[in-house]
């Protein structure tokens, strides 16, 4: 089932149709989320208006984790089944995840200053998210650091899989250690401990960010596939020089070489 969609040519076809819809839906839903978060949602009784930072910070944090999980799963598929599209998916998703992680760290800092009285503390939650950011950067450096993209991809995939241990550490750091960071109030056992008027903008923004992730992933994967095709065509043209001049006479002798 999945392998049917994992054919590069079919991927290009399907993603061409899906791309404008994902982009449009993402923009519309983020606009609704901003309206709900910045205008409709009430100020918090303790934190006042500063609570509005949450509507970016928390969805960005969820995306940071989910994007890493995506990179790791795609890396696993690339390692085990050697599927080229899985490796391209992992490679394309990593910078998007790094961007969300950076947004999470920066907005968290801006939220921590008025609420905790500090921009940064070296506690378990903050440090493990910083480690996640460095894992992303390490992965990106590694996959681009080899002349042979296949070797870089393999090395990066192993790093991505090893880094998965960091995900439960981030998730449960607020329960395992004493930390300034508050424990989970949405994704927890039992009912969320957050009012509906604040939960709604949070979930809408999370949906918008997810669609933004998918949109950017499709754009970046299509770019990567185009660039690989360009490289293959150039290599092919170099192997058979001056194809335009040679073609008229050779066309009848031999069929043109099929391109990947």
């Amino acid at each position, binding site marked *: 089932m999945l392998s049917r969609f994992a054919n590069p040519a079919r991927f290009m076809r399907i993603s061409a149709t899906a791309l404008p819809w994902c982009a449009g839906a993402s923009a519309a839903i983020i606009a609704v989320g901003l309206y709900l978060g910045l205008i409709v949602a009430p100020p918090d009784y303790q934190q006042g208006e500063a609570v509005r*930072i949450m509507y970016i910070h928390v969805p960005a944090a969820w995306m940071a984790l989910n994007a890493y999980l995506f990179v790791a799963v795609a890396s696993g598929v690339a390692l085990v089944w050697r599927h080229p599209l899985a490796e391209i998916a992992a490679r394309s998703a990593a910078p998007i995840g790094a961007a969300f992680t950076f947004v999470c760290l920066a*907005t968290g800092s801006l939220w921590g200053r008025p609420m905790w009285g500090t921009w940064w503390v070296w506690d378990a939650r903050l440090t493990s998210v910083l480690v996640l950011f460095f894992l992303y950067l390490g992965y990106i450096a590694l996959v681009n650091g080899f002349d042979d993209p296949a070797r870089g991809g393999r090395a990066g995939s192993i790093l991505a899989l090893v880094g998965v241990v960091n995900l439960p550490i981030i998730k449960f750091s607020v329960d395992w250690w004493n930390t300034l960071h508050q424990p989970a109030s949405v994704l927890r056992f039992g009912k969320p401990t957050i009012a509906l008027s604040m939960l709604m903008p949070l979930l809408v923004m999370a949906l918008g960010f997810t669609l933004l992730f998918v949109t950017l992933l499709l*754009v970046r994967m299509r770019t990567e596939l*185009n660039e690989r095709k360009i490289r293959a065509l150039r290599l092919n043209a170099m192997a058979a020089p001056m194809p335009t001049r040679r*073609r008229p006479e050779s066309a009848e002798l031999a069929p043109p*070489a099929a391109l990947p």
Partner: protein
Amino acid sequence: MVNSIGAYFAMGGYAVYVWPAYGIATAVLGGLALYAWQRYRDSVRSLERLQRQLGPRR
């Protein structure tokens, strides 16, 4: 009206934290989207150019 808009942007005294947070998110995610789109457009253009140059093979 002017006053209430002013009060809204003041964010109850947290304006210097709330607006930069939204600004950074817009700049980072918007910048990434713009960059990704430009690279995509470039790749489509040079692929088309290359395929024209190589002639109608395949």
